[in-house]
C-alpha cells in the first residue's frame, strides 16, 4: 500500500497541484482509504502524461535523495526534527499552521482579488505543469522545488526594496543553501526535458508574474503578515480546485471532512513552500517542517470544527456565507453593546450634571437668597433660578416665605386647634352612644376628612389608614376646619394639604395651608362663590380662545365647558392631575407668579 501511495504521489505531483496538495497531508499515518482516493484522483486528473511518469518519478527520487547530501544545513534539519520545529517557529509564515482554518480562509478571502486575477489569467493545467516537484524519501512527501532560472531572477529583481530587505534577513540562509540551489535548478532543468514541459519557461514566468503583485502588496506589512496573506491567498487558489475535484470523488463523509480541512491547510503549507522557494529557501528543509506542523493542524482542526462528522461537508459558498453571517452577528452585537454603553454613559453624565446643577442651586438658595429674602426675592437672578425649580431641600423654606403669612398664624395656633379637635373627637366618641345628640357640622366634616384621606394620592400609600402620614393629614385638615368653620372641609383640600405635608412639618403645613386657602382664587372655589368661579372660567376660556382657537372652537362645539375639567385643576392646584414632582414645580411658580401661573399651567404655556 505504501508503494502504491508513493507512486501515486509522484504521479499526482506531475499532473495536478490539487493532488500534490492532498498528498503532503496524509503523511505516514494516513489510512488506506487515503491511498485509494488519491489513486482515483490521479486517474481522473493526471492521465495526460503517463509515459513520463516513471521517468519523472525516478528522477525526483534521486533528486530528493541527493538533497540532504548536497545541503549540509538541509540534512541537519531533516535529521533533527526538533531543529525543524525551531525553524517553523522562527519562520513567521508558520504561524498560519496554528490558526483555525476558517480564519485561514478568511484571510484568503480578504486578499482574494489578486488570486482571482491569477485564476482568470493562467489556465490551471498550465500552472500545474509548471510546478517543479520532487519526492523526498525522508519525509515521504512531494515537495516544490525552487526553480532558479533566468526569467525568475529577472522577476525577483523587480521585487521592491522592502522585499529585498526581507530577503536580506534571510541572507545567511541563502548563502548556506546556495549549493543546493544550483543542484535544484539542475533538477528542474532535468524535469524540463520532459516534452510536456515545453512551455515551462513562459508559464512559470507568468505564474511568478501573478504572484509578484501579491508579494509586493504584502511586503508593506510585517514579514509575518506578508507571508500569511500570501500563503493563504495561494491556498485559496488551490482550495478551490480541490473542492471542485473533490466533488467528483466524494466517497466517505469522514474523509471529505478530513481532507477538506487538511487540504486547506496543506495547500497553504505548499504555497508557503512556494514562497520559500521564491525567497531562495532550502526547499527540503521547509517542506519537512511543514509536514510536522501540517499533521498537528489537521488533527486539531477536527476538534475545532463544530460540524458533526456524520454530516456532509458544506459547500465553499455555504461556508463563506455562514462565516459572513457569523461575522455580521458579531459586529451587530458589538455595535449594540457600544451603543448601549454610550447611552448609559450619557445618561449618567446627564444625571451627574443635573445633580451638580441642583447642588449649585441649593447652595445659592441657602447662602445667597434665603438669608436676605425680602431684598432679593424679586431680583431677576432669583426669579430665573426660581423658574428652573426650587431644589426640594429648600422648598420647605421657600414655600413658607413665598406664600407669606398674612393671617399671622403661628405653629402654636396649629397646636391649639389640634388640641381642640382632639377634645371634640373624644366627646364625639362619648356622645356617639347617645343617639339623640344632634350631629355637629364639624363631626360631619371630620367624618368626610377621614373618608377622603385614604383616597388622597392613593398610589403613594402613605396617607392610607395606618400609614405614616394619615394622622398628620387628618390633623391639619381637622385643625383647619376648627380654625375656619365657615369654609370647613371640602373635597380637594386634602390634595393641597397632602402636598404641603410632604414638604413641611404639620404645624408649618397648617400655617401654609391656611394662607393658601386665604388667596382669592381658593376663596372663590372653596367658598363656592359662583360669580367668582364663573369669572375664572371666563378668563380661562378667553385665554384658551386666544391661544388655541381651534381647540376652543372644538370644545365649544362639543359643549365641553371649563367646569367639567378646569374646576378639578383649580380645586387641587394641579396636584391631582399632574405627577407629584411636576405639581410641585407648578406650585413653585404659583407662589412666585400668583394665580396667573395657574392659568398658564392650565393652558400649558411656559
Amino acid at each position, binding site marked *: 500500500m505504501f508503494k502504491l501511495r508513493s507512486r501515486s504521489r509522484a504521479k499526482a505531483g506531475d499532473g495536478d497541484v490539487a493532488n500534490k496538495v492532498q498528498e503532503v497531508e496524509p503523511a505516514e499515518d494516513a489510512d488506506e482509504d487515503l491511498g485509494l482516493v488519491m489513486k482515483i484522483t490521479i486517474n481522473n486528473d493526471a492521465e495526460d502524461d503517463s509515459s513520463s511518469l516513471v521517468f519523472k518519478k525516478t528522477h525526483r527520487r534521486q533528486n530528493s535523495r541527493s538533497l540532504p547530501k548536497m545541503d549540509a544545513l538541509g540534512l541537519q534539519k531533516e535529521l533533527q526534527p526538533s531543529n525543524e520545529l525551531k525553524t517553523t517557529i522562527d519562520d513567521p509564515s508558520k504561524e498560519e499552521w496554528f490558526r483555525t482554518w476558517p480564519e485561514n480562509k478568511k484571510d484568503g478571502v480578504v486578499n482574494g482579488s489578486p488570486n482571482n486575477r491569477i485564476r482568470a489569467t493562467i489556465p490551471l493545467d498550465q500552472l500545474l505543469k509548471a510546478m517543479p516537484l520532487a519526492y523526498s524519501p525522508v519525509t515521504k512527501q512531494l515537495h516544490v522545488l525552487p526553480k532558479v532560472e533566468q526569467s525568475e531572477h529577472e522577476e525577483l529583481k523587480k521585487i521592491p526594496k522592502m522585499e529585498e530587505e526581507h530577503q536580506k534577513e534571510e541572507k545567511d540562509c541563502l548563502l548556506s543553501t546556495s549549493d543546493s540551489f544550483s543542484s535544484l535548478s539542475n533538477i528542474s532543468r532535468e524535469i524540463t526535458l520532459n516534452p510536456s514541459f515545453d512551455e515551462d519557461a513562459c508559464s512559470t514566468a507568468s505564474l511568478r508574474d501573478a504572484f509578484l503583485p501579491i508579494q509586493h502588496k504584502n511586503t508593506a506589512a510585517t514579514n509575518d503578515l506578508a507571508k500569511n496573506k500570501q500563503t493563504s491567498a495561494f491556498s485559496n487558489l488551490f482550495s478551490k480546485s480541490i473542492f471542485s475535484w473533490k466533488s467528483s470523488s466524494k466517497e466517505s463523509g469522514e474523509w471529505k471532512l478530513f481532507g477538506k480541512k487538511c487540504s486547506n491547510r496543506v495547500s497553504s503549507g505548499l504555497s508557503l513552500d512556494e514562497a520559500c522557494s521564491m525567497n531562495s529557501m532550502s526547499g527540503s528543509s521547509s517542506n519537512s517542517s511543514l509536514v510536522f506542523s501540517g499533521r498537528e493542524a489537521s488533527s486539531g482542526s477536527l476538534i475545532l470544527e463544530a460540524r458533526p462528522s456524520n454530516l456532509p461537508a458544506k459547500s465553499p459558498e455555504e461556508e463563506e456565507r455562514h462565516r459572513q453571517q457569523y461575522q455580521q452577528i458579531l459586529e451587530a452585537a458589538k455595535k449594540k453593546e457600544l451603543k448601549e454603553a454610550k447611552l448609559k454613559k450619557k445618561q449618567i453624565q446627564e444625571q451627574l450634571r443635573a445633580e451638580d446643577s441642583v447642588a449649585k442651586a441649593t447652595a445659592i438658595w441657602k447662602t445667597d437668597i434665603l438669608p436676605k429674602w425680602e431684598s432679593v426675592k424679586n431680583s431677576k437672578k432669583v426669579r430665573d433660578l426660581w423658574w428652573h425649580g426650587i431644589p426640594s431641600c429648600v422648598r420647605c423654606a421657600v414655600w413658607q416665605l413665598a406664600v407669606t403669612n398674612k393671617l399671622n398664624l403661628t405653629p402654636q395656633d396649629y397646636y391649639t386647634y389640634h388640641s381642640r379637635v382632639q377634645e371634640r373627637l373624644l366627646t364625639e366618641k362619648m356622645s356617639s352612644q347617645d343617639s339623640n345628640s344632634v350631629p355637629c357640622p364639624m363631626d360631619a366634616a371630620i367624618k*368626610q376628612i377621614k*373618608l*377622603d384621606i385614604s*383616597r*388622597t*394620592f*392613593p*398610589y403613594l*400609600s402613605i396617607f392610607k389608614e395606618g400609614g405614616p402620614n394619615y394622622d398628620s393629614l387628618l390633623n391639619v385638615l381637622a385643625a383647619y376646619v376648627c380654625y375656619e368653620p365657615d369654609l*370647613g372641609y*371640602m*373635597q*380637594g383640600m*386634602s*390634595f393641597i394639604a397632602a402636598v404641603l405635608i410632604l414638604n413641611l412639618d404639620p404645624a408649618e403645613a397648617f400655617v401654609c395651608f391656611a394662607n393658601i386657602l386665604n388667596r382669592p382664587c381658593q376663596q372663590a372655589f372653596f367658598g*363656592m362663590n*359662583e360669580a367668582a368661579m364663573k369669572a375664572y372660567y371666563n378668563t380661562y376660556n378667553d385665554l384658551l380662545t386666544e391661544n388655541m382657537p381651534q381647540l376652543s372652537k*372644538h370644545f365649544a*362645539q*362639543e359643549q365641553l*365647558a371649563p*367646569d*367639567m*375639567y378646569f*374646576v*378639578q385643576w383649580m*380645586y*387641587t392646584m394641579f396636584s*391631582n392631575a399632574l405627577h407629584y414632582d411636576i405639581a410641585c414645580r407648578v406650585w413653585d411658580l404659583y407662589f412666585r407668579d400668583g394665580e396667573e401661573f395657574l392659568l398658564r399651567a392650565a393652558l400649558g404655556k411656559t
Partner: protein
Amino acid sequence: MSESYDYLFKFLVIGSAGTGKSCLLHQFIESKFKEDSSHTIGVEFGSKVVPVSGKQVKLQIWDTAGQERFKSVTRSYYRGAAGALLVYDVTRRDSFNALANWLADARSLASPNIVVLLVGNKSDLESQREVTFLEASRFAQENELMFLETSAKSGQNVVEAFSKCAKAIVTKIESGELDPDRIGSGIQYGNLKPTRNSASAATGRSCPCKV
C-alpha cells in the same frame, strides 16, 4: 372612534361621597376593581357600548363628586341626562338617608322623566350591612325606581345595573314615552340607524373624540 351604536345616552352616577361611584364606573368599563381610587373632584367620564334589546347603546357616563358641598358645581352636570344610577352604600345608613335629596336633585335638574336605578353598592360587605335589601326595595318602589344591589369589588350586578337602566330607556323610547328628539332628552342617535333626525345625529357624531 370606530365603534358604532344606535343610541347614545347620557348617564349620571350620583350619590353620597364614598359610596363607590367611581369604582362602579371603573368596574363597568374595565371589568376590574380599582383598589387605589382617589376621590372625585368635579366630574369624571367614562363610556361604553352595551347591547340592549338588540340595539347597540353607547353610555356616556358622568361620574360626579359625592360631597354635598360640591352640589353647586355638580348641578350643571345634570342637564340633559337620560338616566342615572343613584348609589348608596349598604354599610352606611347616612348614604341611604341622603337618597331622597339626590333623587329630588336628579328629577329637578336633569328631567322629570329621567330613568333612575337605585344601586345598593358594597353588597360584598354583608357583615357590615346597615341597610337591608327589603328596606331599599321599598324605597325604590315608593319612588318608582328600579333597584339592584351591586358589588364593585366582586363585579356582581355591575353591568346588569347599567344595562337594566339603558334597557328601560330604550323601552320608553320604543313605547313613545320618551322623545329622543326633544332637546335635553339626553338621547342621541348613533351612526347605525338612519332616522328622521339623521342631521342632528350626524352632528353628534362629528367629533372623533366624543365620549
